[in-house]
């Protein structure tokens, strides 16, 4: 248990002296996962909206399928993308394997279902009467939809934070697709995995604490922005 205390001390030290390797790895983690969440949001929020605002055959089944993929293992996503972007795969010519772009693709695919599903849930959570009220007050269909979306924004941002959390904390896809190359594709989780393998448990734990710290900062910033706008 003394390791826990040592890890806390080491985490504080690493942050305080801005250890160049840790700063670099942390920035890369942040960049990769932020890029993933932005890209995924560009797809998922509109798709979630489309699904919510349209009635069609098989809608329930589709939502069930999306929700099932919440639990897709990160290693499976890694393996799946690996087969596509490996030189022997259909997208091999793009030379993406073992690059940061590969990790981003993996993480985007990983969080697509969560973000889509949570957007649908967020929109569902808005009271039906709000739409009726808006319509009865003379709003057009589009205006009513905007009303619902703005009512749902807290839950949507919650979904974004959740997706970001899943992206920055996953190790399976990052390890398999990025290869944990020092100075190029090493992110916090793959660094933790490597240091654990090397037996430096204290450093691993310290990096874990830094990861949590980053997640905390991101979630606070998102919530502050939400309050303001």
């Amino acid at each position, binding site marked *: 248990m003394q390791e826990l205390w040592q890890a806390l001390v080491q985490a504080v030290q690493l942050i305080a002296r801005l250890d160049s390797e840790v700063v670099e790895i942390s920035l890369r983690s942040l960049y990769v996962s932020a890029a993933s969440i932005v890209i995924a949001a560009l797809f998922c929020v509109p798709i979630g909206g489309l699904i919510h605002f349209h009635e069609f055959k098989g809608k329930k089944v589709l939502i069930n399928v999306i929700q099932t993929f919440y639990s897709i293992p990160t290693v499976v996503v890694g393996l799946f993308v690996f087969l596509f972007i490996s*030189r022997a795969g259909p997208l091999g010519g793009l030379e993406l394997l073992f690059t940061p772009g590969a990790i981003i693709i993996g993480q985007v695919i990983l969080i697509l279902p969560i973000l889509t599903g949570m957007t649908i849930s967020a929109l569902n959570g808005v009271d039906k009467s709000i739409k009726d009220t808006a319509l009865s007050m003379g709003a057009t269909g589009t205006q009513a939809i905007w009303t619902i979306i703005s009512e749902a924004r807290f839950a949507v941002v919650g979904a974004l934070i959740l997706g970001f959390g899943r992206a920055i904390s996953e190790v399976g896809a990052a390890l398999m697709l990025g290869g944990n190359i020092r100075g190029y594709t090493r992110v916090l989780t793959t660094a933790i995995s490597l240091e654990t393998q090397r037996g430096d448990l204290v450093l691993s734990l310290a990096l874990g604490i830094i990861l949590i710290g980053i997640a905390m900062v991101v979630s606070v910033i998102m919530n502050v922005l939400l309050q303001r706008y």
Partner: protein
Amino acid sequence: MKTLLIRSIRHISLLVLLVSLLLSAALPGCTPAATPAVTDSKPAAPQPIPVVAGIPRFKIATTTSLYDTGLWNYLEPMFEKKANVRLDIVYAGTGVALEYGRRGDVDALVVHDPEAEAKFIAEGYGINKRSFAFNHFLIAGPASDPAGIKGLTPDQAFKKIYEGGVADPSKVKFISRGDNSGTHSKEKLIWQSAGYKYEDVRKSGSWYVETGKGMGPCLLMANEQQAYVLADISTFLAFKAKVTIVPLVDQGALFLNVYDVMAINPEKIKTAKMLPTANAFINWLMSDEVQDVIATYGVAEYGRPLFSPLKGGGCTEPGCPKLEDYTTPVK
């Protein structure tokens, strides 16, 4: 249905890719090149040279034992400066490393499984194989040595462990890598020469623990469970301070562990374009510069080198590579 699925996934991946490329271009401040220059407190390894556009990336897959001991951290910047490339090092067990090679995902391999390497070369994937370092395996276990293997030969020791484990799994346990790594291949070879079929051993009871993990985690696990484990001596030394298990058997011809390097054959893998760099890399590993580093690497920390260079003919036991295999440059 399947092709439709695959096609739509391809479309999505491409779309995702395009957007991510745009984003990475738009956010240059977050790319590694812009890492703030802060003083590094870790003196162990020089930092890799910064990413500069136009410097080709040379990808290698290396065995975990060489990586976990930190040797590559040390060698990486040396080669980057010499060959003016970015050396991207992916670490994996020999089985996975060879698979990366077969798929054309790397340009060169550093591995330690003679049989699997021979197959890889016979299939036409690997060329220009050379050897550049060696060390030995050992069997570590609890100091109390419940199976009584101390001082035996490797195959006799495995026999004792098997018998002890089958008789009482609570007393005698064996931790296996179980990951098709070079160490795992060596383990199978020792079982074979002890007169067992590997598949029978695997299924013979709870005393035989397959982990599927790297050498380091296996040592930690053997330590936790007070079990026996086959390890390369370098990783064992690197973990010695963290474990209470001790080397019990460290002599025997079967224990020789030779590290080889080879290039991916561009005639077999059309996308392999880095053969000249791979050749330079192979020749560089055999050069005095690297051989001298290998001869001293780890002395300061562990009191002895973690690997032995082949230069100077220090490897004399049966199974050692021939002189030309570690001296003749590749072209």
